[in-house]
């Protein structure tokens, strides 16, 4: 995508805020907030309704513009891009997964996944090859020719994840992707997202389900448009990864 350094956050929000003008005066939906998401990270954002979660996701994906601060995708300041460039960056770089309405019903799973590449001018055969590879990564290659209506809810979300990460697309933005799924299926989708991030892709996830947020490397809480400050939090046992193998007496660890 670009020649930016590996240390460049794939997504950075610097002092980003969004204020909506209304007839009863300006209403602040978000911020200002700072956030840097590194390559390979899975970051979850939690917060009650109206805390600014979806606004943050829309700003991160350039679906909305901030009223203050800068949003950088792979080091590019979105405000400096012309709208055609912005659309191209978004299409090449960012994938979206929502609770539902993810897939076009008239296209097969493979065609759905290939679509962003085709829109971007990739030749049909190459686009389908890439799409098949993306479906393989979510272990759905065998269902490539099914239409969305013939897939379960969990399978549809896996297709949506494959499409979000097809070809060079490196950043997935997800708004309640497990919201419509039962516990076991939702967990399967989170395991898959985790595996994709462990393989180098990056995801920013909005959810109100703590058990799903817990698959993330970092869980951030939003309240009234700001991140809740965890600075006061006593860090328990150092790096949780170090103690993760321990299984001695869970009762005593309460």
């Amino acid at each position: 995508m670009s020649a930016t350094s590996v240390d460049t956050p794939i997504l950075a929000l610097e002092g980003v805020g969004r204020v909506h003008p209304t007839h009863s005066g300006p209403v602040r939906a978000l911020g200002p907030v700072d956030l840097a998401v590194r390559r390979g990270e899975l970051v979850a954002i939690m917060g009650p309704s109206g805390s600014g979660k979806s606004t943050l996701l829309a700003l991160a994906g350039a679906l909305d513009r901030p009223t203050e601060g800068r949003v950088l995708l792979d080091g590019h300041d979105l405000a400096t891009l012309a709208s055609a460039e912005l659309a191209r960056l978004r299409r090449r770089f960012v994938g979206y997964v929502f609770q539902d309405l993810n897939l076009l019903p008239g296209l097969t799973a493979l065609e759905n996944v290939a679509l962003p590449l085709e829109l971007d001018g990739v030749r049909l055969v190459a686009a389908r090859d890439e799409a098949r590879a993306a479906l393989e990564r979510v272990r759905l290659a065998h269902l490539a020719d099914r239409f969305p209506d013939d897939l379960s809810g969990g399978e549809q979300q896996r297709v949506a994840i494959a499409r979000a990460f097809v070809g060079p697309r490196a950043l997935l933005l997800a708004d309640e992707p497990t919201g419509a799924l039962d516990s076991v299926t939702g967990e399967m989708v989170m395991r898959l997202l985790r595996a994709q991030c462990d393989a180098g892709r990056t995801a920013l996830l909005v959810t109100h389900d703590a058990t799903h947020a817990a698959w993330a490397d970092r869980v951030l809480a939003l309240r009234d448009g700001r991140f809740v400050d965890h600075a006061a939090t006593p860090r328990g046992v150092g790096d949780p990864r170090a103690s993760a193998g321990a299984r001695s007496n869970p009762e005593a660890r309460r």
Partner: protein
Amino acid sequence: MSVRHSLLALLDREPSHGYALKAGFEAGTAHAWPLNVGQVYTTLARLERDGLAEPAGSDDGPRQTWRITDAGRVELARWFHGPLVEDPPARDELAIKVLLAIAAEDVTAILDVQRAAAMERLQDLTRQKARADPEREFVWLLLLDALVLKVEAEIRWLDLCAARLAARGGS
């Protein structure tokens, strides 16, 4: 945790001696709750006193082998098939702390700290789930699910407290 009923369940499978019961309990519950072998012998003595288990001779060298009695099977069936009801509820330090903190100036900060710690615990448990082998470690995975949902309940309760406090403060 009912050591008493756990031992009856193991003895119902086959007569065993004390150390095998300790090992069987720990293996059957994913090694989550280490059991002191002394506690096993004390419990066996009480089961014998109550007529629920009895010595079955020493088939295994010097170790005493135990077996379940008919009365023991009845008691075991009652435990397995009846619901477990906590009445009164077990004392819950978190609930007590939060309820007593409602009068404090900054209960929100107290909730935030607790929530962040619970979230870290949930992430830790989830990493252990990610690592567990769903075939070989099935029992362990079920136990992790139980622990995950307990922490989730705690987080949801803390969120509910925060929401109710905000609604009360705003009205």
